[in-house]
């Protein structure tokens, strides 16, 4: 079975800084995979490389049987890879509905604006935003903006969804709701990669965790094993945390 996404020896530097260093891993269809690591480890850069925002300096990125590391971001989006931004990027003066319609109309492949709006309404209902459909996107709370980001991405009909710190800035209740949403998305057959600092989410939702440190992949294992990995503990988790959450992980 071909992996859905394959990175082979991918590297990227910015001037003197090596942001991503010789990273290789695979994502298989239907998985929910976590990507963790300290700030500055290169997580967002990795997402940018996969989605075509940056070009890899070395290595290959394969999506199914097609090599995508040389494609521009809009073409990659049309092939079914979607991402959310850490700092949300809405179309501020357009309504919530119009924002999501944009996703459906272009990468989502819906031919007319009217049909795209209908599809968009479905996605808004799925993410719990339908009551805000006619509000301008800039008027939303942070939690709702994150949902809007998610709805936009879903509208593009992705097979692979990269969520970049979707839970940053949310309180406990909001995080639980987000967790449910993520599981619901996975049930639709979409492969998800979660970049997260909120360990509760990583441990509860993912079946596999990748750990990035100084641009290098230092672990690629189940959440349980990762929280017990001494390298990961030293680089990121800290021993107190590891002891506390060790019991939570499967």
């Amino acid at each position, binding site marked *: 079975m071909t992996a859905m996404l394959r990175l082979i020896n991918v590297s990227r530097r910015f001037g003197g800084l090596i942001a991503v260093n010789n990273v290789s891993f695979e994502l298989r269809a239907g998985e929910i995979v976590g990507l963790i690591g300290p700030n500055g480890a290169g997580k967002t850069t990795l997402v940018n490389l996969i989605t075509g925002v940056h070009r890899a300096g070395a290595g290959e990125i394969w999506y199914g049987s097609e090599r995508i590391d040389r494609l521009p971001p809009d073409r990659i989006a049309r092939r079914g890879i979607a991402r959310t931004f850490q700092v949300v990027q809405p179309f501020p003066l357009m309504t919530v509905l119009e924002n999501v*319609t944009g996703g459906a109309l272009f990468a989502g492949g819906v031919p007319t604006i009217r049909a795209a709006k209908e599809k968009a309404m479905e996605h808004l209902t799925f993410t719990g935003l339908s009551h805000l459909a006619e509000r301008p996107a800039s008027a939303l709370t942070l939690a709702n903006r994150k949902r809007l980001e998610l709805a936009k991405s879903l509208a593009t009909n992705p097979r692979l969804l990269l969520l970049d710190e979707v839970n940053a800035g949310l309180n406990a209740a909001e995080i639980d709701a987000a967790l449910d949403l993520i599981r619901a998305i996975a049930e639709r057959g979409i492969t998800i990669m979660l970049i997260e600092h909120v360990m509760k989410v990583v441990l509860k939702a993912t079946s596999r965790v990748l750990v990035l440190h100084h641009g290098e992949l230092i672990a690629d294992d189940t959440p349980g094993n990762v929280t017990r990995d001494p390298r990961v503990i030293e680089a990121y988790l800290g021993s107190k945390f590891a002891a506390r959450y060790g019991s939570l992980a499967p």
Partner: protein
Amino acid sequence: MMRVLAFAVAVVLVMLPALADNYLLRVATTMLMYSALALGWNFIGGFAGYPSFATAAFFGLGAYASGVLQTKGVPMPAAWALGGAIVAVFAAALGRAILHLRGHYFAIASLVVAEVLREITNSATDLTGGGMGLNLPVLSLDVTAQARLFYYAMLVAAAAALATTALVAHNRLGFGLRCIQQNEDAAIMLGINTLRYKVVAFVLSAVFPGVCGGIYASWVNYIDPTDVYDVLLSVKPIVMVLLGGVGTVMGGVYGAVLFLLMEELVWRNLLQFHAGLLGIIVVCLVLFLPHGLRGAGWAKLWRRRTGEAAP
């Protein structure tokens, strides 16, 4: 109600030559030209949000392309169409070259193109007459017939510009351009090929001024580089659209009408202070009416406008 009004206006416009004298007809022809220029600019400046100052370049190029063709014997309407086509091709190439720039850099590049074209036209004396200008073949029609002819020509150009604007505003292209204007990086991530969309908008913003330039050249029979590449031809359409509402369908038309009224009623008498008065109007417009005259209370249309508030 609106439809009845629109129909009435259309009827008046078509019947105008039978009702008006030559002076009024001339004013109306100018108004139609201004509308076409403003509507043209709106594609790139309003819908896509890219501050283009290239209108003068396209107008001048259209004027000269059509004018030169006519001096070589090409019949007038064909020359207008060919002139428009030449401008469109030029805009496509120029767009590919400069639309990756944003903000100020794009504005400067678009501004400077007119200057470069003007200098080139000035130097190509054999072809264009250089600084001494170009004389176009005179038509064998009487004054009134000519006034009507050019009126209808500009009417067709303006109507085509308006129809295209309405079409684009409600279709995929317009939606995509709006996304680009709101947040270009997000637009790319949603699968929009932004360069292609921007180039289309740029070409649309060129072809109408280009055709108008051709018609204008035939209308006035004599053009020179300083006249048709004048930077004010880039600034005035922007002012008109700012007045009438950026990124809307009718904004260019309302602004053009208003601008022309001001120009005819107030300005004509102050020839010495023409530029200065335009400057004052621009300053007042920018400082006090940033959303144009339609800014007050039209909430839905407001949202479709360029984000003018500070982020």
